[in-house]
């Protein structure tokens, strides 16, 4: 028997699916309406029970969309509000700016590639990988220019590591300011990164004696550049070409970027085009006038690379309010640029007493780590905090402890214990406590 052409099959299936969609038009409208109100919260859920058992919903009584209806799959339209957002007043424009990952809505420890926060200094370039090159030169025996194909021939490896802008939470130094978790902590993401260890490339070009620093430079309109110490380059720095199993996203530096695990996101140069090996730091703009930490005595710390241990409760949070008293799975994210998260504690009374939480899922060094805790909410107001302890024994500090050392003008590396104020109605707001 002759098989119908693939396209023909597709067309027929689509039509059937469509007619199935169209038949119960009234039901479909109701479905869309209830679906949308479901997004509004669980209160609406009770009213949306039209298709709860024993009723059968229309999508069960019709055919669905065919394969490759979306050749590159997209999230359900019901997830349309799970997106990156920016804070307009933060920067002069959206070209040299930042967007935030919706931490309240993501699960596990991997940030979907399309939700990884963006940071541009001169906008996102559109780069043809066939026209992109990586030049490695300076104090090396064999300066080379690599095409992307050539770079990908080196032995490669993968690692799950967080990426965090050192300014994450920086708006909170002088007091609680942002109204949502997305904006208090969302300059933070975690991906599986695949690429070539920088140490492999350095061995190939032959680093000369006296070489201590590497200038990494991007191909974007700001030619973004940072100096990286040789110790890090030889430790775990990775020249990355893939993220979560697919080519690096344009927002993340397509076709290649640097990842310095556990260090300031700013050092992880995107659209990487050049590595110059030298004897001393290059004192670029983003390691002098910016990304230095001003202390109360007027001195500024430079090359403050490590992102210290930090954590935040993601449920409850302003975006995830509670819906009446009862049992809840409180959860959140913890991370440390110095290694693995060893423990996380949770307080409900603003830090007077603490309960150890459970670490759930994978615990990778320098990666986001999930924690959770079963909690019976009696409906009374609470001040909810989390506290991360990493494998070096470092304990996440309070605002009081952090400000005692650093004042409140240092912009970067704010890793203080965060407080959510849970109100009796279940809503959650951002506060700072004594």
């Amino acid at each position, binding site marked *: 028997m002759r098989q119908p052409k693939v396209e023909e099959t597709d067309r027929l299936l689509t039509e059937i699916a469509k007619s199935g969609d169209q038949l119960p038009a009234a039901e479909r409208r109701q479905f869309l309406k209830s679906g949308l109100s479901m997004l509004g919260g669980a209160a609406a859920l009770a009213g949306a029970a039209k298709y709860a058992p024993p009723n059968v919903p229309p999508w069960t009584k019709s055919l669905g969309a065919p394969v490759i209806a979306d050749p590159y799959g997209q999230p359900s339209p019901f997830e349309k509000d799970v997106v990156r957002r920016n804070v307009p007043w933060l920067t002069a424009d959206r070209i040299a700016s930042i967007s935030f990952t919706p931490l309240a809505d993501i699960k596990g420890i991997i940030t979907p590639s399309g939700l990884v926060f963006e940071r541009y200094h001169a906008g996102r370039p559109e780069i043809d990988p066939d026209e992109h090159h990586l030049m490695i030169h300076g104090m090396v025996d*064999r300066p080379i220019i690599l*095409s992307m194909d050539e770079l990908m021939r080196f032995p490669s490896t993968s690692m799950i590591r967080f990426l965090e802008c050192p300014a994450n939470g920086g708006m909170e130094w002088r007091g609680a300011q942002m109204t949502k978790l997305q904006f208090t902590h969302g300059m933070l993401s975690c991906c599986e990164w695949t690429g070539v260890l920088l140490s492999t490339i350095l061995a*190939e070009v032959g680093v000369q004696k006296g070489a201590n620093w590497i200038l990494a430079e991007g191909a974007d309109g700001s030619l973004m550049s940072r100096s990286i110490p040789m110790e890090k380059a030889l430790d775990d720095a990775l020249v990355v070409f893939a993220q979560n199993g697919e080519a690096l996203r344009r927002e993340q530096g397509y076709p290649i970027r640097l990842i310095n695990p556990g260090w300031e996101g700013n050092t992880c140069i995107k659209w990487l085009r050049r590595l110059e090996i030298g004897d*001393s730091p290059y004192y670029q703009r983003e390691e*002098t006038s910016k990304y230095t930490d001003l202390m109360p005595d007027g001195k500024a710390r430079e090359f403050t690379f490590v992102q210290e241990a930090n954590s935040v409760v993601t449920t409850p949070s302003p975006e995830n309010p509670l819906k009446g008293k009862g049992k809840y799975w409180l959860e959140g994210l913890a991370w440390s640029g110095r290694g693995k998260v060893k423990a996380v504690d949770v307080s409900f009374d603003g830090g007077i*007493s603490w309960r150890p939480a459970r670490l759930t899922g994978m615990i990778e060094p320098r990666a986001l780590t999930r924690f959770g805790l079963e909690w019976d909410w009696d409906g009374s107001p609470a001040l909810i905090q989390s506290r991360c302890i990493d494998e070096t024994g470092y304990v996440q500090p309070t605002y009081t402890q952090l400000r005692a*050392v650093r004042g409140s003008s240092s912009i970067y590396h704010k890793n203080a214990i965060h407080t959510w104020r849970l109100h009796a109605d279940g809503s959650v707001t951002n506060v700072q*406590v004594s």
Partner: protein
Amino acid sequence: MFRFPKLYKFKRLSLIVLLVAAFATTVVNAKVKGVGHYGYGKVATAEEIAGWDIDIRPDGRGLPPGSGSVEDGEILYEDQCASCHGSFGEGVGKYPVLAGGEGTLTEERPEKTVGSFWAHTSTLFDYIRRAMPFPQPASLSDEETYAITAYVLYLNDLVEDDFVLSQDTWDEVAKLPNNSNFVPDPRPDTQAVRCMKDCKKEVKIVSEPTITAEEVAAADDTIVKAAAGNENEKGASVYNGACAVCHNSGVAGAPKLDDKATWKARLALGEATLIKHAIEGFQGDAGMMPPKGGRMDLSDEDVAAAVKFMLAEAE
């Protein structure tokens, strides 16, 4: 200079584990053969390197031949920089302040400028050369970069008005006034302990956001919403993604989208001419429109759609 974080409070066991891990890494790396083992890529020639090696180091290494005067810098600065940074380096809107702020680093609101905070003049030259002016990065000649650098130093009272910056005069200005106030990273610098009970006597809320969610939403003024009747969605999208950076604020002499008076004369030129100017670039009285606003990734159709959107908004 740079110091690695102390391996403090490490248990003996974890240290051993770490050493073993480090040894394992070394073994893996040792498997990588010597220089040129893979032989990938092409050996870079001096000429190829020179084309991309644009960084300038504090001691002046990397400086190109040439020179630039404060006098020439003033004209260039007014033309290329003042629309964002202000005629006196005071900054326009949220764009960086370049001058002033001396003695404010210990104050509640420190003003971090070239004169008050930056450490090296090389950073200034390097950054202007690689990334400025903002809408047209890497467009200045070496002479122009010298001149603008000299002028920014002048704005900070660091040189006289007859100063000429070159490799020969570099040492006089290489170190900026705040040079000695940068220190290595001493972290970990907090000594929090893992207390579980009675960790403090009482807790008070000391700070809450003063802006409401509604105010946050209202502040979202960077996205231009099309006026009623302007259904050019593609144009709106291109405008917001590419043109808004200058035409929202009037940066670089760009006519602001909502400045209807300024647009009147332009409208008289006709749509076709304005689209041509936008695609090919145009030198106007108030400022320069770079080809495609510097966004060479945009197609001609994209630019035309944006121009049509803007004209409909301006009418």
